[in-house]
C-alpha cells in the first residue's frame, strides 16, 4: 500500500470510528473508541512528526499508542481550557479531527520536504557527533530476516493458542471471583427522614439489603431503651431488599434488630440515639 492509500485508509478509519462512537451500536462504539483513544491519532501524528524512514517498524508500533495517549492528555487540557467540556462528542472530535489534520500536514510535509532517502543516507553517515555513536537513523541490531507469508502464518499460529490460554485464565478468574462472592451481604441501615411530630414520634427509614431466601423469613423488631419491643414485623425476602419508614419515639434511644428465621440472637442491629 503506498503512502497516499495508507493515509486515506487512516482518514476513513478515523471518521468511521468517530461516527461509530457517536452514533453506532454497542460493539462498534467500543471498537471505534479504542481505535481513537489508543491508535489512530498516534499513527497520524507519527506520520506528521517523524520521517517514515527515520524510525523502525517497532518504533512506529510503539509511537502509535504513545502519541495517541499524549494527545488525550494534552488535548484534554485544551478542551478544559476552552470550556468545551470533556464529553464523548468532544473527545471524538478532538481525536478524529487531530488525526485528519495530522494526515493532511504529513502529506504537505512530504510534498515539500527533501527526499527522505537522502536524509537517511546523510543521517547514517553521521553528523559529526561521533562520541555518541554516529547518528543512527534506522534500526540497529543487524539485518532483520523475513519469511514468506505461509511460513509466517504457520510460525505465528501458537500465538492463537497463547491468546486462547490467556482467555481461559481470565474466564477462570472471573468464575472464581463470582463463586467466592456468591453470598450476598445482608445489611441493616437506618436513617432519620424527618423531625418529630406533635405525637413525639420521628420517622426513620429502615432498609435491609442482601436478604437471602434460605435464611428467611426474617423478623425486624424495634425496641426502646427499656428493651420493650414496640414493633415486630416479618419481612418478605423475595425482593432482596426491604425498606419501610417507621415512626419511633423521639425521646428514647431506639434499637432495631434483624433476626434470621429460627434465631434468637439478632443478626444485625442498628442504634438510634435520642433525638436532639
Amino acid at each position, binding site marked *: 500500500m503506498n503512502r497516499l492509500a495508507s493515509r486515506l485508509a487512516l482518514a476513513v478509519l478515523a471518521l468511521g470510528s468517530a461516527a461509530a462512537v457517536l452514533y453506532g451500536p454497542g460493539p462498534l462504539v467500543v471498537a471505534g473508541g479504542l481505535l481513537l*483513544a489508543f491508535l489512530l491519532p498516534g499513527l497520524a501524528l507519527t506520520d506528521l512528526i517523524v520521517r517514515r524512514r527515520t524510525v523502525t517498524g517497532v518504533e512506529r*508500533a510503539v509511537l502509535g499508542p504513545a502519541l495517541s495517549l499524549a494527545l488525550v492528555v494534552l488535548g484534554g487540557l485544551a478542551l478544559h481550557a476552552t470550556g468545551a467540556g470533556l464529553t464523548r462528542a468532544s473527545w471524538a472530535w478532538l481525536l478524529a479531527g487531530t488525526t485528519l489534520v495530522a494526515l493532511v500536514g504529513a502529506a504537505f510535509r512530504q510534498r515539500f520536504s527533501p527526499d527522505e532517502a537522502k536524509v537517511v543516507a546523510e543521517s547514517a553517515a553521521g553528523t559529526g557527533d561521533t562520541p555518541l555513536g554516529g547518528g543512527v537513523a534506522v534500526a540497529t541490531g543487524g539485518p532483520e530476516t523475513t519469511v514468506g507469508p505461509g511460513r509466517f502464518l504457520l510460525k505465528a499460529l501458537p500465538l492463537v493458542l497463547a*491468546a486462547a490460554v490467556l482467555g*481461559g485464565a481470565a474466564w477462570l478468574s472471573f468464575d472464581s471471583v463470582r463463586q467466592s462472592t456468591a453470598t450476598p451481604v445482608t445489611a441493616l441501615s437506618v436513617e432519620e427522614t424527618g423531625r418529630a411530630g406533635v405525637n413525639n414520634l420521628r420517622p426513620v427509614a429502615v432498609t435491609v439489603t442482601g436478604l437471602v431466601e434460605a435464611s428467611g423469613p426474617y423478623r425486624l423488631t424495634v425496641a426502646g431503651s427499656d428493651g420493650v419491643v414496640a414493633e415486630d414485623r416479618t419481612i418478605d425476602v423475595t425482593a432482596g431488599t426491604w425498606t419501610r419508614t417507621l415512626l419511633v419515639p423521639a425521646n428514647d434511644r431506639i434499637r432495631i434488630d434483624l433476626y434470621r428465621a429460627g434465631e434468637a440472637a439478632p443478626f444485625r442491629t442498628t442504634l438510634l440515639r435520642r433525638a436532639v
Partner: protein
Amino acid sequence: MVIAIRPASPQPGGSDTITLPAQKTAPHVTLRPATPPQPESRADRLRRMFRGPDLGLAPAVLALSAVGALLVALAYDAGRDQRGSAMVIYWLGQVVVFSPVAARLLSRRLAGAAEAFVLVMGLAITQYVTKWIYSPDQFRFPDELQHWLGTTLIMETGRLFEPNPALPPAVNFPGLAEMGAAVSSLTGLSVTAAGLTVAGIAHLVFVGALFVTVQRAGATAAVAGLTCVVYATALHYLFFNSMYLYQTAALPFLMFTVWAYRRWRTGGGWRFALLGVVTTAVTTVAHHVTAFMLIGTLALLAVTELAVAKPRRWSALLGPLAAFAVVAAWIWFVARDVIGYLSAPVDRIAETVHLLMADKDAGAAPVASVQLWQLAVQGLGLLALGLLFLVILKSAWTGRKQPKDVWLWAALAGSVVFFLGNGVRFLGASGPEIAGRLSTFTYVPISIVAALALVRVAGTVRERTPATEPAGRRFVAGMLAGTAIATLLLAGARAGGWPPVYGLLPGPYLAAGFERSVDDSSVTAAQWLAADPGHRLGGDITGVALGSTYGRQDPVREAAPLYEGPVWTPQDRQLAADLAIDYLWVDRRMATQVPASGAYFENDPKAGRWTSPIPAADLAKFDRVETADRVYDNGNVRIYRMGNR
C-alpha cells in the same frame, strides 16, 4: 575474553579485550551499533511487503508462557478457596511465565528484532494478565480506588481539576484520569474497565519504549529484549507500575523522552527535540515524581556526556534544562501544593538520618515481619546484580582509553544510584516506600547493565571464528545460568515487591491487608455511604480508602486513637470533635486478626507493634456513646454517625 553487544570475534588466544563488532580491535564494551544502517530500496520494500518478519520461536515460547498465566489463575482460584497447593502452583506459574522468555532471549538462535520485540511484548501482556486476574472485577488497591474516583469525577462533571478528597495531589496531575475518562466516554465501558485497559496499554507502551530506547542506544535486539526482561523483575513492575495509578501513565512518556533525547543527540534533528518536549509535558501532567525523575535522568545523561565525550558539547544540557522548565512551570502555575505533599516523606528521611548521625533511635519502619527466606532471595538477587554490574564495570574500565560509550557509562552511573537507593529502605518509616519508588527508575540502568552481562554469562555473543565458538554444551550451561539468574531476580521481586507475601494470593479478608481487605462487606458498606456524600469519615486503612472513594466521603486519617481502650473518654470526644468526624467506620474483624501490614490505621501510633488484635471491647464501646448512632451494620462493618454534625 571478549564482550560485544553484537556478534563479534574475540582476539586470538582469548584476550581480555572487548571487541566492537565493526572494529576488529575495538577494545571496550559498548552499546553502539556495529554498522550504519542502509536506506531501503523501493524493490526491497516491495519484496518485504509480501513477507512477514521472522518471529523465530517467539509464538511457541509465548504459548508456553501463557500456560504459566493459567497456572497463576489456578493458584488464585485455590487461594480464594484456601487450598494448600495454591502457593506452589503460584510460584510454578510465575516461573513458567517468565523463564522461557528469558531463556529464548539468551539463545544464540534469536531470529532478530522482531522476535525479541514480540517476546518482550508477549511477556508484558502475559504478566499484565497475571496482575489483572488477581482482581478481575474491580480495583482493590487504595491508590487505584483514588484514581477511580478522580476519573469518575471527570466523567460526572466533564471538567478537570475537580477536588478529589481521596487524593488531593492527583487533582493537579490529571493525565491518567484524562486517559481513563476518554476511554470510558468513547467506548461506554465502565471506569473500572476503562482504567484496566488504560493501565494495560500504558504498561505495554512503557515496555515497548524501553525496548526501542535501549535498541537506539546501540544494543542488539537480544540485549534490548533482555533489558525489558530484567526490568520485569523490578520490585514494583508487576503491580505498582501496572496499576491504575498516575505513575503508570507517566512512565512510558519518561522513557519516550529519553528515547527522543537520544535521537536528538545522535543527529535526529529538531523533530525529536520537539517530540521530547511534548513527552516531557505529558510526563509532567501525569505524575510529579516521574517528572522529577525525568529531569534527573536527562541530567545524568547530559553530565555523563559532558564528562566522557570528546569534543565536549554543552548543548547536552538543553535536554534537562528544558525538562526542568516544563516541570517548574507546571508546578508554579498549577500544582504548587505538591511541594508540601512530597516534602513530608523527604523530611522524615532527613530526620531519620539526623537521628542516626546523633546515634539516637530512629524508630523502625511499620512493616509486616519479613521472613528469612524473603531476605535471602532478595539478598541473593542483589548480589547477582552486583556481580553482573562488576562484570560490565570491569570491561568498561579496561577499555577506558578508547572513545567512550556515553550511554554505557550513564547506565553504570545510574546503577550506582540503584545500589545507593537500596540503602534508603533502612532509613525510617518512609524508607521502604521511597526506596521502592526510587527503584522504579533506577532499575532501568541496572537492567541495561545486567542484560549486557547476562549475554556474556550465557555466551550469547557469537564468535566470528567458528573454531572458537563455545561448545554446545557449554553454551547451554551458560544459557541456563543466565536464565537462572534472571529467574532468581524475579523470585526476589515477587518476594519483596507488591503484593506482600501475605497477599500474593487473593483470598478471604485480612485485616489491614490492602487488596486482601477489600471484600463484599467493605465495598457494600462504602457504597451505602455514597447516599450521603461529603462528610468526614474516620476508620481503618481500608475503611478510609473505600469510604473516600466509593463512599464519596472526606477521609480523616488521624482517627486511630479513637479505637483505643474500652471506654469512650472525654479525650476521645474532643478528638472526634476536633477532627469533625461525621461517620466512624468500625470493622469488627480487626478484633480477630493482627494487622497484616503492621498497622490498622494510617498514622497508627502502634504501627509495627501490634502483637494481638484490637480487643473486641474497644470496638464495642461505640455502642455506648450517647451521641452516636449505629446507622449501618452488615455483620462485619458497622458505621456510626457521630454527633458532630
